[in-house]
C-alpha cells in the first residue's frame, strides 16, 4: 500500500458509508493528479518525503473527512466540547453503552416482574436515570479529552517515527482494528490515554459495586445480592485492569515499546478466559438478599431467571474470548522471527500503515 492509499484509507474510515466510495475515488484522483503535476515540474519521480509533504498539506484525514459530512452536530456546554468531527463516533459509543446497560436493566426488571416482585415505576425511572447519568458523564468526559487533543494538535496525524510510517493519532477505529489484526509497531498516544481513562473508570466502578451493589442491581438490590464469586474474582480482575493501566502508561511515554505486545495480548486474553471459566463454574451469580422474607418463592424464581441470563452471557463471552485467544496464538505462531518492535525500516515503509 502506498502513502496515498494510506492517507485515503484514513479519510475513508471517517466518511459516511453511502458516499465513501465516491469521495475516496475523487480524492484519490485529486492527490494523484497533483503528484503527477509536481513530478512534471521537477522532471523526476517524487521522493517519499515529497509525497508526505503534499499529503501533509491536505491536513488531518479525520478533519478532512468531517468536511464532507453534512451532519455538523456537536455537543456544547457553554463552549463546544465535542465537535462535528468526533460527534458521530461519540453517538455510536454512547448508543452502544446505553443499549447494553438498558438491556441489563430490562433483564433485571423483567425477571422481577415475571417472578411477581413488586416493581414500581419510580424504581425503573431512577435506575435508568442513574445509568444514563453515569454513561453520559464517562463517555462525554473521554470524548471531550479527545476533542481537546484534536483541537490543540490538529497536525498530530502526520508521519511518526522512522520509515515514513503513517499513523493517525486520532483514528479510533483503525487503531482498534490494527490492534486486533496486526502486530502494530507503535501505539498511538490517544489510544494509551483512552485505555488509561477507561480502565481507571472501570476499576472505580468495580470497587464501587463491591460496596454498593445498587450500582449494578438498581432497586433490585433490596431483594438481591451479588454471589460470593464476584468478591472472589474481584482481585484478579482488578489486577488485570491495573496491569493494563501500567502497560498503557508505559506506551504513553514510549509508544515504540511494543516488543512483547503480542505475547502480552495472548496473556491478557487467556487470563480473561480463566476468569470467565471460574465464573461459569460458580453456577450462581446473584442470590436472594433475604431468603426468609415473604414472597421467597417469587424471589427464588427471580434469582433463577437472572442466573439463567448470566449463564448465557458468560458462555457467549467464553466462546468469543476463546476464539480471540486462538486467533492471537495462531498469529503469534505464524509471525516470522524478529517480526517485532525492531522490524526493519523498509518493512515498515512498505506496509505504510
Amino acid at each position, binding site marked *: 500500500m502506498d502513502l496515498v492509499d494510506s492517507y485515503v484509507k484514513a479519510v475513508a474510515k471517517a466518511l459516511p458509508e453511502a*458516499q465513501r466510495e*465516491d*469521495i475516496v*475515488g*475523487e*480524492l484519490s*484522483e*485529486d492527490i*494523484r*493528479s*497533483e503528484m503527477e*503535476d509536481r513530478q512534471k515540474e521537477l522532471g523526476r519521480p517524487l521522493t517519499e518525503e515529497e509525497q508526505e509533504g503534499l499529503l501533509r498539506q*491536505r*491536513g488531518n484525514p479525520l*478533519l*478532512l473527512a468531517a*468536511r*464532507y459530512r453534512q451532519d455538523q452536530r456537536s455537543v456544547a456546554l457553554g463552549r463546544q466540547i465535542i465537535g462535528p468531527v468526533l460527534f458521530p463516533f461519540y453517538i455510536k459509543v454512547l448508543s452502544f453503552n446505553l443499549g447494553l446497560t438498558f438491556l441489563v436493566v430490562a433483564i433485571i426488571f423483567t425477571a422481577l416482574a415475571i417472578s411477581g416482585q413488586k416493581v414500581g415505576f419510580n424504581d425503573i425511572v431512577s435506575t435508568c436515570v442513574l445509568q444514563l447519568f453515569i454513561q453520559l458523564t464517562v463517555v462525554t468526559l473521554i470524548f471531550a479529552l479527545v476533542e481537546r487533543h484534536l483541537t490543540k494538535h490538529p497536525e498530530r496525524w502526520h508521519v511518526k517515527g522512522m520509515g515514513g510510517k503513517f499513523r493517525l493519532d486520532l483514528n479510533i477505529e483503525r487503531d482498534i482494528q490494527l490492534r486486533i489484526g496486526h502486530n502494530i509497531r507503535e501505539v498511538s498516544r490517544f489510544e494509551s490515554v483512552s485505555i488509561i481513562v477507561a480502565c481507571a473508570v472501570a476499576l472505580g466502578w468495580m470497587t464501587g459495586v463491591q460496596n454498593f451493589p445498587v450500582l449494578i442491581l438498581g432497586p433490585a438490590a433490596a431483594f438481591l445480592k451479588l454471589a460470593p464469586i464476584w468478591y472472589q474474582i474481584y482481585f484478579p480482575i482488578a489486577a488485570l485492569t491495573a496491569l493494563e493501566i501500567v502497560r498503557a502508561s508505559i506506551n504513553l511515554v514510549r509508544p515504540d515499546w511494543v516488543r512483547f505486545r503480542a505475547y502480552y495480548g495472548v496473556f491478557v486474553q487467556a487470563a480473561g478466559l480463566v476468569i470467565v471459566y471460574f465464573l461459569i463454574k460458580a453456577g450462581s451469580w446473584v442470590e436472594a438478599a433475604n431468603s426468609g422474607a415473604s414472597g421467597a418463592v417469587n424471589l427464588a424464581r427471580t434469582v433463577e431467571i437472572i442466573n439463567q441470563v448470566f449463564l448465557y452471557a458468560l458462555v457467549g463471552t467464553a466462546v468469543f474470548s476463546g476464539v480471540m485467544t486462538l486467533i492471537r496464538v495462531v498469529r503469534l505462531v505464524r509471525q516470522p522471527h524478529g517480526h517485532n518492535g525492531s522490524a526493519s525500516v523498509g518493512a515498515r515503509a512498505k506496509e505504510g500503515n
Partner: protein
Amino acid sequence: MTPGTDNHELFENLRLELRRGSLVLAVLAALRKEHYGYTLRKTLSERGMAIDEGTLYPLLRRLESHGLLVSEWREEDKRNKRFYKLSADGKEMLKQLLTEWQGINSSLNGML
C-alpha cells in the same frame, strides 16, 4: 492572547466569510466549461481563487445535490475521473447570482 493575535484571527474569520459566498459564484462560473476536480481547482487557483480540496469537493457535492451541477465518471488517461459541468438550472442560477453580484459590487463601489 494578545490584541494583535485577536485582530488577526478576526480578520481571518471575516475574510473567510467574505470568500465563502464568492467561491460558489467562482465555481459555478468556472463550470460553464466541463472540469474534473483537480483541473477545476487549478483553474480557480490560476484565476486567484485558490480553494483547498476539503472545501471544493464538499461544495461540488452540495451544488450537485441542489441540481445546479451534473457529474459523470469517465476514464481519461487510464484513470477514472469525475467530470462536472453546470446543469440548465445551474446556468439560470449563475445568471441570477451574477446580476446580484454586480448589484452588490456597484453599491459597494459607491460606498467605498
